């Protein structure tokens, strides 16, 4: 009997088909009345690297599990080109997934962990061997092929998990905070490694993280989630420079978020008053004069110069520059970076360029 004849009907054979677009249409998921993910609309194009970014509990892992088929949707649908996907069980979707704790099979060797998915697809022995060898070489684990996962370091386990997912040449790779268990140095290395694999293998990747730096450096497009709802979707540059609301700004490194009252417009700018000092900012999302607003500015954009007086409270050495925490007379805390090193207790004054001060409705 040939291999083809013994293959059960309905089992995906060999390589799953590639898609042009993957469309999430109003994808929602509730847990006991609490909406963990609400109305996620997203179209993923082939070859894209998408990062789902948000604080813990924002629904990003829920979204990933819904995509993988590990969680049924409460509402909405998922379409792979013209085929509906959300009705299929995970084993029929042909996606690869890298779990936060790696989820390596502890009783199988590295080689057999990587071979597992190929065996499930009934790939012929010779091809299976070739593809596993190739995957081992890709993640530099040829030496460790015969070891059990328990004998590997965290970084090596991580690479096995990635190899096991990509050896199937899946149409989509899902990664659930894959670097969160690694130390800082290894995390940087693996970050580069993941981007390199994504490019060299032509993968389409959806990557979940709570680390904005990781998301900005890896992704072609970011999806920022908060409390189960999409806040903004866009390329890293756009999110970095033009956050859509102050929650996104908060996530994008605008550490100074000052609750103020909007003043009158001045040209394209808007005036906000802070302890008797006028600052001009850039309005985002049309804050009405007189309404409560949130003014956002990054530490690196707050400059020491004539303006708002404050007292230095904490000085942290950070290599090329120092991070300064200062407090105004009215008790507002400010974070800024400075090339000079002020002393604790020094009186300084800070100011900001109008285009660097974003004023959002709060």
């Amino acid at each position, binding site marked *: 009997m040939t291999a083809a004849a013994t293959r059960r009907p309905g089992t995906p054979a060999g390589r799953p088909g590639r898609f042009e677009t993957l469309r999430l249409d109003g994808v929602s998921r509730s847990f006991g009345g609490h909406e963990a993910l609400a109305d996620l609309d997203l179209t993923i194009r082939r070859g894209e690297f998408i990062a789902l970014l948000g604080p813990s509990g924002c629904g990003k892992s829920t979204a990933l599990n819904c995509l993988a088929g590990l969680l049924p949707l409460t509402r909405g649908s998922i379409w792979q080109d013209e085929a509906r996907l959300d009705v299929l069980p995970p084993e029929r979707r042909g996606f690869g997934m890298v779990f936060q704790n790696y989820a390596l099979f502890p009783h199988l060797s590295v080689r057999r962990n990587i071979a597992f998915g190929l065996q499930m*697809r009934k790939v012929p022995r010779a091809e299976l061997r070739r593809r596993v060898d190739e995957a081992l070489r890709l993640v530099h684990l040829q030496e460790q092929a015969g070891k*059990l996962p328990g004998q590997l370091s965290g970084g090596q386990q991580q690479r096995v998990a990635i190899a096991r997912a990509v050896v199937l040449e899946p149409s989509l790779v899902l990664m659930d905070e894959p670097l969160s268990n690694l130390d800082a140095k290894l995390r940087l290395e693996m970050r580069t490694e993941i981007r390199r694999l994504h490019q060299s293998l032509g993968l389409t990747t959806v990557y979940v993280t709570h680390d904005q730096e990781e998301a900005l450096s890896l992704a072609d497009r970011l999806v920022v989630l908060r409390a189960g709802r999409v806040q903004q979707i866009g390329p890293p540059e756009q999110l970095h420079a033009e956050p859509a609301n102050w929650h996104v700004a908060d996530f994008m490194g605008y550490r100074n978020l000052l609750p103020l009252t909007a003043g009158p417009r001045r040209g394209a700018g808007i005036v906000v008053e802070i302890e008797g000092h006028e600052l001009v900012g850039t309005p985002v999302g049309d804050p009405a004069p007189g309404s409560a607003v949130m003014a956002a500015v990054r530490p690196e954009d707050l400059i020491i110069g004539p303006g708002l007086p404050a007292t230095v409270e904490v000085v942290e050495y950070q290599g090329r520059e120092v991070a300064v925490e200062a407090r105004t007379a009215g008790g507002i805390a400010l974070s800024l970076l400075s090339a000079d090193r002020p002393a604790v207790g020094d009186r300084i004054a800070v100011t900001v360029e109008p285009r660097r001060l974003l004023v959002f409705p709060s």
Partner: protein
Amino acid sequence: MSARPALRHRLAERGVDRQLLLLLPAALFVVTLFIYPFLYGVGLSFQPTRGGMLGAYREFFTDAYLRDTILTTLRLSLPAALLNVLASVPIAYRMRGRFRGKRLVTTLLVVPITLGTVLTAQGLLNFLGPTGWFNRTLLSAGLVDAPVRLTNNFWGVFFSLVITGFPFAFLLVLSYLSGIDPSLERAAATLGAGRWQRFRRITLPLLAPGLATTFCLTFVLAFSVFPSAVLVGDPSGTTRVMSIAAYDAAYVRYDYPLASAVAVLMGLVELLVIAAVLGWRALLYTGTTAGGKG
């Protein structure tokens, strides 16, 4: 000259913890209450009234009525233990996750532990006996002409062993199963494994050592069956198990050496079965059941 390190440090270097000495009184207790009577019994079995040192053993193996108790006991305890373990697996597998009413179902499954053998036997007689509800239902429905004999024979004891042994097996299997990282099966699913493949290739291999241990424990429970073999069995015939033979020898014939010999043989047979199962277990993967760093 450096002083000799303190005794505690010298002991610690050899891996000896001085606080272990606190175990001595308990050890003495075990020696007087368990090891001494055990050795006394072994000694007694080699001092029969006739036939030399091995007389009691020779009598056991020449008398078919005694010898056959080994097979009778194994015929009851091996299938009962096997059934308990095998039935626990699918039930525990279904009950791993969280669902409404889980506590109630678990309680119902575990309640027989608290009943004790005598109450179980009473229930079996009431329910499955010749005039029990089961037979009355069958008779009145016209399905049988005469009552089906399910008590006071092999089946009565077998049911009793399953009812009392299942909760142990179930609780053990459930705890072994919940020790297996659920993300492993999820990972297997994303790699294309269907329900059966996930169970067979991931869960079962990780569970197998636990099943071996569970089998040993339920087997030992079933092997020393005495009350149910008398109460719902046929103690002079098909369910004449080794413990009954020992009881007979000791308290009916007052032949203590023979009774001791039966007891020693019971222990040996149990040891053989357990050694075989644990030998098989040693061939399996017995490491961690976690999928990586937590």
